[in-house]
């Protein structure tokens, strides 16, 4: 291997992608060429030092900025989509037109209007579906963040998702039962009011009462169960009211809840 050929292999040598035969040839060359050996050692040192430089992280604002832009872009597409323009089929100033010509125009106009309307409906349904998916992604992504304030934003964002969205519903129920932040749990209980019609909400929140270690969340849950007239919660409320470890205020609230539901 010549000195010029060594230079062709330096990049692979640094990246650790050099083949075994080439590596052996390189070693042989270094054994008899001090200049190449010294240069490669210096380049390796620089290369290794580059790997120690710290990789910076983007700010917390980048993510919400992106999602806002994505939503704006989609809304822009939505507003740019063709809308069925109502056509003026008759111009009452043209009273001299023959009936045959008028009927022809009416026929064509109505036909086109119906066609455009059908396409418009399909486009709108597709866009609504896209918006729904995007909102779902934002909500789920925020709810998985490490920062409690980001998860709170996720709970808040869930208000823009359809009430039939089972993934967001499951994420909110998970937040109520497992989120380490009391604020996030409280917000999730409030957010679940939109999903109150779902049978899975009632069953889950009823069971959640006993698991909660925060009296504030328990109070919010009792309010929720009473407001939604969830009679299946009677047993859980009674158990809470009798519990020796429950907070005094929670026990009183549970007793009140029982009186409302029975």
């Amino acid at each position, binding site marked *: 291997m010549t000195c010029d050929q060594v*230079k062709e292999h*330096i990049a692979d040598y640094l990246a650790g992608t050099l083949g075994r035969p080439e590596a052996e040839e390189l070693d042989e060359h270094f054994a008899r060429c001090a200049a190449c050996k010294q240069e490669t050692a210096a380049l390796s040192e620089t290369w290794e030092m*580059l790997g120690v430089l710290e990789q910076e992280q983007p700010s917390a*604002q980048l*993510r919400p900025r992106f999602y806002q832009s994505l939503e704006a872009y989609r809304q822009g597409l939505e507003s740019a989509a063709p809308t069925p323009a109502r056509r003026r089929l008759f111009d009452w100033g043209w009273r001299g037109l023959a009936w045959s010509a008028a009927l022809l125009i009416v026929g064509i106009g109505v036909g086109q209007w119906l066609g455009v309307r059908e396409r418009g409906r399909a486009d709108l349904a*597709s866009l609504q579906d896209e918006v729904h998916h995007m909102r779902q992604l934002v909500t789920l992504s925020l709810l998985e963040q490490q920062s409690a304030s980001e998860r709170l934003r996720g709970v808040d964002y869930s208000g823009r998702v359809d009430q039939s969205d089972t993934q967001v519903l499951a994420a909110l129920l998970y937040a109520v039962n497992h989120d380490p932040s009391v604020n996030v749990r409280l917000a999730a209980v409030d957010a679940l009011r939109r999903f109150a019609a779902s049978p899975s909400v009632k069953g889950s929140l009823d069971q959640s009462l006993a698991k909660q270690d925060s009296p504030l969340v328990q109070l919010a849950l009792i309010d929720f169960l009473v407001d939604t007239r969830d009679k299946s919660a009677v047993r859980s409320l009674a158990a809470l009211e009798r519990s020796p470890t429950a907070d005094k205020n929670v026990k009183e609230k549970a007793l009140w809840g029982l009186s409302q539901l029975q």
Partner: protein
Amino acid sequence: MPETRADNVLMQKVRDGDLAKMAVLFERHHRALFRYFQRLTGNREFSEDLVQDVYFRMLKYRHTYRDGNPFTSWMYQVARNAHLDGAQKRKGEAPLSEEPMREPASAEPDPSEILRRRQDLGLLRRALAALPVEKRELLVLSRFQNLKYEQIADILACDVGTVKVRVYRAIKALSQIFFELAGEKAS
């Protein structure tokens, strides 16, 4: 939960109208893109603007994405164009910051060794800032973004051999500047 699909499949879906899939691609790649721009420009705010610009461009030009085209290469091609346009608008490359390096935690007990390493990393950062942007980009792609030379060749639209020679020249130039700076400091 977001699907763990291949990037190119997600991008095909974006191209075909499923714009929400761009959110998954954002979550996967925005940090790497930010670091790419941060290393090239040395400016956090500008780098975040460029990340935004890349995703906007990928949405706008989604119809140009071809089936089978590696997404990462395509994304970096878009990123390079965004950087070139952005740098032109700013009338020249923003100088890289020469703030003291934040050094990763080290278990070395010797304070003089820690100080020497810190000084070396500071010099290296200055050397990187002094490197012409084409050479800096080669090192950013190969060393910081950990892209293979084949991928870099794809991004730069040249052959792999050319990439390897350019990487050699770039690391050599960086090394020379670094040792010059170290010599100035020592003298």
